[in-house]
């Protein structure tokens, strides 16, 4: 059920936490230097183009955040740009509001409009936001043209060039120097968001939305925040624009400008914020070049002729260099860097029979009280009923197993309990609170999470990056704190420590910095469990945790689950390995054909005739019987 709203893989490289911050620091220093030196070395006409690159680049950074993090695209970034510009012009010329105060309101205005547009649309698939923002661009242009208050077709004019301390910034070079620090700061903030808690969570969403939600990531809310922020960047661009050229007219909201912003972000590399600025310079010079070259080749060509280049470059970049300039740059760098030796995963060492409790937590429900209750669950898919009137309760501190033949409805039950699917009928209660039909992040907020039968790993990041997403709810840095690097730093260190502890627990410490996609299947399964444990849940749902694990890993996992139970955690597992279940679970529920056919202790269930018939397919003949307990077999393998 992977989300189709994923981005090109290169995008999530940003979240690949193997990259040291130091390397990026160099990039930023180089960029700062280049920006400072540009007006000194370039001729004035080029500096003038550079000013536009900086202005438009701001809007492109916002778009890059939106595409890279939220996996959504706006075709109306120019609308927010125009709103910012009109807002600023109105406040400064009509009401004589001081420039900086006006700028704050103008940017806020763009963000409020984005909030209103994003609220209904960001729950839906990406097409709708794209087309609706395209429509927004048309609306803003229409509104501006129709409104005498906004100066109709001639727009608003008479906005002064900024002056601070008696100094007027009216030459291209001076305006460039005024803008450069603003753009640089905007870049830094955006970069911190990408690399921090929010970026990590949304990067995870792009890999597997359902897994991220089950770890407590509220996808919709974060996407909305990023969309609003991206509109803020566009609004700021509008403000700086109107102070430079002094006029704003309905053309500011025009579709070609939105395409231009999009091209900058795509050319720079989706999700790469500094790429957006590089892209902005490239596109502005391309624009300049095309406008002068095309009329030479085709005499009489007038209007937005540069669009031909934009369209072609956009298509070619997405087809052939989907990572954009950022992606090319990274590949070049990688060529010079020594490939890091792939850490061979050491076999799991069997620890001594340590049975001490793990991950205890003081305010858990007392053992034996009802933690989870499922009443009359029904789920139909089309005409087929997959789950038919299933009820049971899970008590705090027990290991509860759900078994049954393939297709019996076990995973469907899990999906309904964890909020991935809404039941057709019936209810789910967690600590006495009804949670069915809510999203998985609500389940996670109730300190309950799950793993997946068909693994849902975040494959564009490392093992550590995966488990860190599990800390999402145990950390707090939002957009603002994440953007300002200092307060978030301490929290990041804290997350890193917790992640190490959990990895140690499941025996993945030596794989911490490997790309999760490179891990063998069994290790990926353990990583999913580690990721779930990082949430410090009270209730843990495991969907076939043993599948794909070797004998040694299975025994380690069984021991881990016992220790977690000793620590007070409640565990519900769906499992095919009957013997493992019988040896581990306190109570077992058996599903067959969507119905609950037995519920009791392992011994009761093992001898239930209905279970034998359904699960093992035994009916009249009996040459296939239940195998004796697997413990003996397992023990014999230790001799290898």
């Amino acid at each position: 059920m992977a989300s189709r709203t994923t981005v090109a893989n290169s995008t999530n490289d940003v979240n690949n936490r193997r990259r040291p911050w130091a390397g990026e620091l160099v990039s930023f220093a180089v960029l700062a230097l280049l920006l400072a030196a540009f007006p000194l070395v370039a001729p004035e006409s080029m500096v003038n183009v550079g000013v536009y690159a900086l202005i438009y680049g701001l809007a492109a950074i916002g778009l890059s955040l939106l595409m890279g993090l939220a996996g959504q695209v706006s075709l109306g970034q120019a609308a927010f740009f125009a709103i910012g510009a009109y807002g600023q012009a109105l406040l400064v010329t009509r009401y004589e509001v001081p420039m900086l105060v006006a700028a704050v309101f103008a940017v806020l205005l763009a963000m409020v409009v984005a909030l209103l547009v994003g609220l209904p649309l960001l729950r839906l698939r990406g097409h709708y936001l794209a087309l609706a923002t395209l429509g927004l661009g048309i609306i803003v242009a229409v509104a501006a043209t129709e409104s005498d208050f906004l100066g109709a077709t001639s727009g608003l004019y008479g906005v002064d060039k900024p002056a601070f301390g008696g100094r007027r910034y009216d030459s291209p070079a001076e305006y460039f120097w005024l803008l450069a620090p603003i753009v640089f700061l905007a870049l830094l903030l955006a970069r911190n968001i990408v690399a921090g808690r929010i970026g990590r969570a949304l990067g995870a969403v792009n890999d597997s939305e359902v897994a991220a939600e089950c770890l407590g990531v509220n996808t919709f809310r974060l996407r909305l925040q990023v969309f609003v922020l991206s509109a803020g960047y566009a609004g700021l661009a509008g403000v700086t624009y109107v102070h430079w050229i002094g006029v704003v007219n309905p053309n500011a909201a025009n579709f070609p400008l939105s395409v231009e912003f999009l091209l900058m972000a795509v050319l720079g590399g989706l999700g790469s914020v500094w790429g957006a600025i590089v892209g902005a310079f490239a596109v502005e010079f391309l624009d300049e070049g095309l406008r002068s070259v095309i009329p030479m080749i085709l005499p009489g060509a007038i209007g937005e002729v540069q669009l031909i280049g934009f369209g072609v470059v956009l298509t070619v970049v997405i087809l052939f260099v989907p990572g954009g300039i950022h992606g090319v740059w990274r590949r070049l760098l990688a060529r010079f860097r020594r490939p890091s030796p792939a850490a061979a995963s050491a076999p799991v060492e069997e620890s001594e029979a340590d049975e001490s409790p793990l991950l205890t937590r003081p305010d858990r429900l007392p053992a034996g009280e009802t933690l989870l209750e499922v009443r009359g669950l029904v789920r139909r898919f089309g005409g087929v009923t997959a789950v038919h009137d299933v009820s049971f309760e899970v008590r705090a501190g027990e290991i509860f197993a759900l078994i049954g033949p393939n297709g019996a409805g076990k995973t469907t039950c899990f999906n309904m309990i964890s909020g991935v699917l809404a039941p057709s009928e019936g209810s789910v209660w967690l600590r006495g609170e009804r949670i069915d039909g809510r999203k998985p992040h609500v389940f996670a907020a109730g300190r309950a999470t799950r793993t997946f039968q068909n693994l849902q790993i975040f494959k564009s990041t490392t093992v550590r990056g995966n488990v860190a997403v599990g800390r999402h709810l145990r950390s707090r840095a939002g957009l603002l704190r994440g953007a300002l690097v200092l307060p978030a730093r301490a929290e990041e260190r804290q997350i890193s420590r917790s992640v190490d502890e959990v990895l140690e627990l499941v025996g993945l410490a030596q794989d911490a910095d490997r790309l999760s996609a490179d891990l063998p299947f069994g290790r990926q399964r353990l990583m999913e469990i580690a990721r779930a444990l990082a949430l410090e849940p009270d209730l843990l749902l495991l969907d076939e945790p043993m599948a794909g694990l070797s004998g040694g890993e299975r025994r380690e996992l069984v021991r881990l689950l016992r220790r977690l139970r000793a620590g007070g955690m409640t565990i519900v597992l769906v499992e095919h390995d009957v013997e493992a279940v019988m040896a581990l679970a306190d109570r077992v529920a058996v599903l067959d054909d969507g119905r609950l056919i037995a519920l009791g202790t392992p011994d009761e269930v093992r001898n239930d005739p209905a279970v034998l018939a359904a699960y093992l397919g035994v009916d009249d003949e009996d040459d296939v019987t239940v195998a004796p307990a697997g413990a003996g077999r397992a023990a014999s393998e230790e001799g290898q």
Partner: protein
Amino acid sequence: MTDLFQLLLAGVSIGAVYALIAMGFVVIFTVSEVINLAQGEFAALAGLVAISAAGSGLPLPAAILLAIATVVVVAAVMQRLTIAPVKRMTTLISIILTLGVSTALKAAMLLIWGPEGQGLTPFPGSDFNVFGVSVQAQYLWILGVTAIVAVVVTLFYERTLLGKALRACAEQPTAARLVGISIARASLLSFAIAGFLGSVAGVLSSPIYFSSWDSGLALGLKGFVAATLGGLVSFRGAILGGLLLGVLESLVAGYVDSGLRDAVAFIVLILVLVMRPGGIFRQHTVARV
């Protein structure tokens, strides 16, 4: 009252154009989950080609056929060059790709035909009055041809094995491949059909609404809104959505403010997505194309 009928007639006629474009969106979306942002450009291009062809002395029917053929080829080439090579199509990539093509097409039209809008010679027939409502012959052409095309396309999808194969690709791509249907060819065919629908919309609308290099932008957006009204996967929904949107626009322009015409589509889109994201005629899903 006469005003109302006049507005309704104008609304239904532009609505039929939106319906054709909306059907183009549906054709491509159901097979490859791509929203083709160049769908409006197909219409603009057809209009401009027909105008030039007719202007160079070709008889009108030949000019129209030439325009339709040109756009079908352009649509097929677009699929081969930009959609087919992508291994893992995501929503984001599909939007950017088709936007790139749409932008390039727009600019190419600007370079060839210049910035001014032009209208194709009206189709034969004389305008007349019924109870004070003036009826342009072109309105009847639009309604009649749209009705025929809609019926033919619907029959194609519901009655022919090829049409059913396209639906199979849309519903169960894996199973479609397992019975030997090539998804790549199905996608190519769907682009050609969408090109046909867009070009018919373009030549029909050009005499009244004109064609220009950027007229595809609003047409495309409105076609999309119409398709969304119908849930994006249903022809009947798309047709009804187009007519509804056209009438609504016409009424708003007539009774409220003609400048607000283009705002209607956007507001309708937002309202539909807030209240009924599955389309307003929800019972029509892929199940009944």
